[in-house]
């Protein structure tokens, strides 16, 4: 078996190479953070930074605030997402295909754009606030702080729950519904005792994603939180702050975040595993035409939710064509904003976004397919380590990853900070767990005997992987890659920490323009981002041939 042994060696070499990459770009930076968090300036080891955090209300109250907004937004998202998914799966809604696209788009834009758009609408000087104030002669102060943050995060995140639960409902066999009905169950009882328990694992998994996203997002509380300071805001200001920066204290804060997400991750796994049932739908649920009041209510509810969810996008797109004077609008139509951002010779912001995104996607797809192949088909002690290691970035918030990268790669021989490479690698690592999971699912659906057939016909293992397995995976991988691409171009939390003026991307530019109150430019940049997302999404539908999205 000479050829077999040689094939094994190639896989082994690859396993080692990938392991080395992950050790360098995941384990080393995170390890460094752990080390820094307990290393005092005088070189001794102590937990003083943690004591500092938990002993001062100024510090620990941000954590309490974070938990408050995160729990509230996760709950609202879960309920809203669940209801939307059930209604759209069980009742025929006109134009549901387009509604689906709108829901996805509202999810794909970065949360802080939602925050800034809602400030334009419901802020102190907001469009809707002014109408309400003049209508009722009131003096509404606008939506800021806790309520504002929860509003933005809930509307931003329910689509995630919606997409996951909608997928789970598709796998739910309708005969379970029918069995319950034949046993005397009404519609509401059925939802409560059959549907909800069965989608609970999915609901938990997607809620965890929402939780982690909301918990680690700093752009939104920064823009709409005003005095309401959350933990990521504290972290960001400790690290980037103009007054006092304390690397070691910031590292300790990072460790606290990682600890919390780690606990949540295992909690969700533990509960999820206990409640998961393998289901295969012989006959999936079919959306039925409703009549009368039920029909009207369902349509009104779905359309209202979708409208509110895409309202920020609509606001941004329409304000991008409005003339601005400082931070306020004159009400005149103009293309000046686009001229401002496109006319200078340097449009690197836009080209950077596309370039970094594409490079990261390419890396992610190649590595992701390889890793999932290794962990599924070449099971060994090493590949199972690889499996665990590659899931690690899943629980590391973007800002923490960004900070750890800056610590790790800011001096020779590993001087990467300020380069495009560091941004591409960070994007790549952030997206890796998702790509690996979807590729693993795709490989799981391909029977190993197909490869064995190729080998029995004289092909080498490597050749059968490249000529047989990879092409069979391509359609699934490609549609996954497009989804990754859309998420990557709207990434902010690690880019904002790693960028320099040369490596600025669209989201960073939008954020910077918003902070500088250049709303016109911000809106124009956002519109370009949104249009890119929409085109990519349409491409996704074309490639995947269906309307079901998993992120």
């Amino acid at each position: 078996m000479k050829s077999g042994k040689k094939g094994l060696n190639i896989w082994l070499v690859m396993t080692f190479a990938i392991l080395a990459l992950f050790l360098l770009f995941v384990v080393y930076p995170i390890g460094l953070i752990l080390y820094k968090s307990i290393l005092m300036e005088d070189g001794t080891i102590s937990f003083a930074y943690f004591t500092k955090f938990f002993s001062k209300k100024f510090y620990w109250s941000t954590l309490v605030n974070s938990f408050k907004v995160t729990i509230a937004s996760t709950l609202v998202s879960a309920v809203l997402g669940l209801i939307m998914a059930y209604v759209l799966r069980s009742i025929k809604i006109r134009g549901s295909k387009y509604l689906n696209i709108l829901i996805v788009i509202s999810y794909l834009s970065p949360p802080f754009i939602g925050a800034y758009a809602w400030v334009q609408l419901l802020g102190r000087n907001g469009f809707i606030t002014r109408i309400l104030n003049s209508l009722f002669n009131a003096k509404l102060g606008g939506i800021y702080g806790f309520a504002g943050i929860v509003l933005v995060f809930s509307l931003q995140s329910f689509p995630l729950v919606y997409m996951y639960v909608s997928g789970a409902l598709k796998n739910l066999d309708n005969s379970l519904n029918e069995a319950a009905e034949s046993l005397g169950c009404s519609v509401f009882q059925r939802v409560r005792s059959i549907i909800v328990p069965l989608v609970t694992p999915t609901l938990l998994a997607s809620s965890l994603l929402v939780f982690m996203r909301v918990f680690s997002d700093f752009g939104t509380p920064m823009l709409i939180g005003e005095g309401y300071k959350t933990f990521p805001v504290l972290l960001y200001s400790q690290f980037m702050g103009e007054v006092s920066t304390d690397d070691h204290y910031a590292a300790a804060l990072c460790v606290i975040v990682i600890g919390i997400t780690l606990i949540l991750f295992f909690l969700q796994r533990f509960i999820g595993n206990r409640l998961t049932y393998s289901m295969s739908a012989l006959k999936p649920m079919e959306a039925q035409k409703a009549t009368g009041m039920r029909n009207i209510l369902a349509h009104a509810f779905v359309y209202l939710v979708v409208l509110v969810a895409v309202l920020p996008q609509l606001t941004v797109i329409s304000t991008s064509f409005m003339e601005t004077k400082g931070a306020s609008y004159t009400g005149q139509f103009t293309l000046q904003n686009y001229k401002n951002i496109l006319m200078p010779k340097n449009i690197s912001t836009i080209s950077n976004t596309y370039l970094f995104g594409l490079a990261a996607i390419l890396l992610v797809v190649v590595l992701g397919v390889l890793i999932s192949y290794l962990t599924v088909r070449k099971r060994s002690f090493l590949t199972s380590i690889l499996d665990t290691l590659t899931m690690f970035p899943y629980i590391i918030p973007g800002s923490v990853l960004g900070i750890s990268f800056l610590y790790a790669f800011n001096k020779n021989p590993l001087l990467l900070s300020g380069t495009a490479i560091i941004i591409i690698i960070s994007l790549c690592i952030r997206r890796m767990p998702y790509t690996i999971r979807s590729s693993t699912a795709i490989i799981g659906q391909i029977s190993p005997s197909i490869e064995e057939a190729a080998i029995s016909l004289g092909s080498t293992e490597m050749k059968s992987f490249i000529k047989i397995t990879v092409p069979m995976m391509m359609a699934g991988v490609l549609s996954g890659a497009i989804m990754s691409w859309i998420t990557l171009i709207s990434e902010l939390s690690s880019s904002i920490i790693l960028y320099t003026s040369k490596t600025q991307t669209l989201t960073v530019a939008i954020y910077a323009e918003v902070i500088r109150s250049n709303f016109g430019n911000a809106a124009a940049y956002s519109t370009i981002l949104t249009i890119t997302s929409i085109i990519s999404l349409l491409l996704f539908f074309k490639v995947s041939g269906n309307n079901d999205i998993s992120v």
Partner: protein
Amino acid sequence: MSVAINIENVVKRFGKDTVINGLSLDIKPGEFFTLLGPSGCGKTTLLRMIIGFNSIEGGQIKVDGKVINNIPTNKRNMGMVFQNYAIFPHMSVKDNIAFGLKNRKVPKNEIESRVDEILKVVKIDHLKNRMPQKLSGGQQQRIALARAIVIHPEVLLMDEPLSNLDAKLRTEMRNAIKQIQQQVGITTVYVTHDQEEALAVSDRIAVMNGGVIQQIDTPKNIYQRPANTFVSTFIGLSNIVKGVLENNEKGKAWVKIGNYRFQMNNIKKDCGANCPVKVSIRPEEFIINRETEEGIPVVVKSSVFLGVATHYFVETKEGQEMEVIQNSDLDELIPNGTKIHLKVQVQKVNVFSEDGNRTFIDRGVRS
């Protein structure tokens, strides 16, 4: 106790497609009634109209004399067993079975005793507290059956309940189903495409094709006296041979297949002399004749020895292929290529009109 089901002129449309157009049948109280037919014949559609998952576009369905067209499914008091069992995966065996009772607000101690009782009936009392995921198909099937009958429904409906089981378990479960149905005495409508299963369990069978009932009868009559060539070929195997009916007088008629003539005494009187017919002969109704020239001349093409019986595949001189089954005896198999003559067991064969839609057999006459 048991109730009758009367289906009167029901119509089912899906969009513009009319799947069932004015179908009627009556199911007697306590009867084990089977809807049998090839896939797409409308049998499951009809079953789902009875339980209420499908709307009824015309006609009516009565249970115990009451029209149920507009009663929602969860108020119909019918139990249903699904093709894939539809066991709730997140509930224990006990909770699955108690589900319907809880919906009916049955007192707790009564639920307990009824669940225990039914668990014994379906013989899975040792699995009471298990989760269903790890149980075998047969066990899940028993849970589904228990769950459907524990609510004391007026009607029990089963939609291809055995099609997901392997062959051996299928035989075992169909005997169990039949036995439990007799024990409980509940009016049962059973859907299957498996004719052997239908023959084994049913009191009566309705054979359906293209949304139309071809024949309603006991398993024995369906097999031995099919109403048309569809039934005779769908249930078991039949060789359909062209023939002519000669001088039909006083119930005695000569049937002629090629040069082979035989007399039958159970032919209806309403068909004239010298009318072309289709003769339906089951493989086991042939008698191989190697001594004389009497019978249909055929050539043996191949043979299969299956222990109890031997199957011969033969061809007529017109090129029609037929199958003949003989009890295996100790003699050598007939070699391929041998010319033989086939006579028929006159009392058993069936004669149909030329289009195959009408039988000429008069069942009033005992032959």
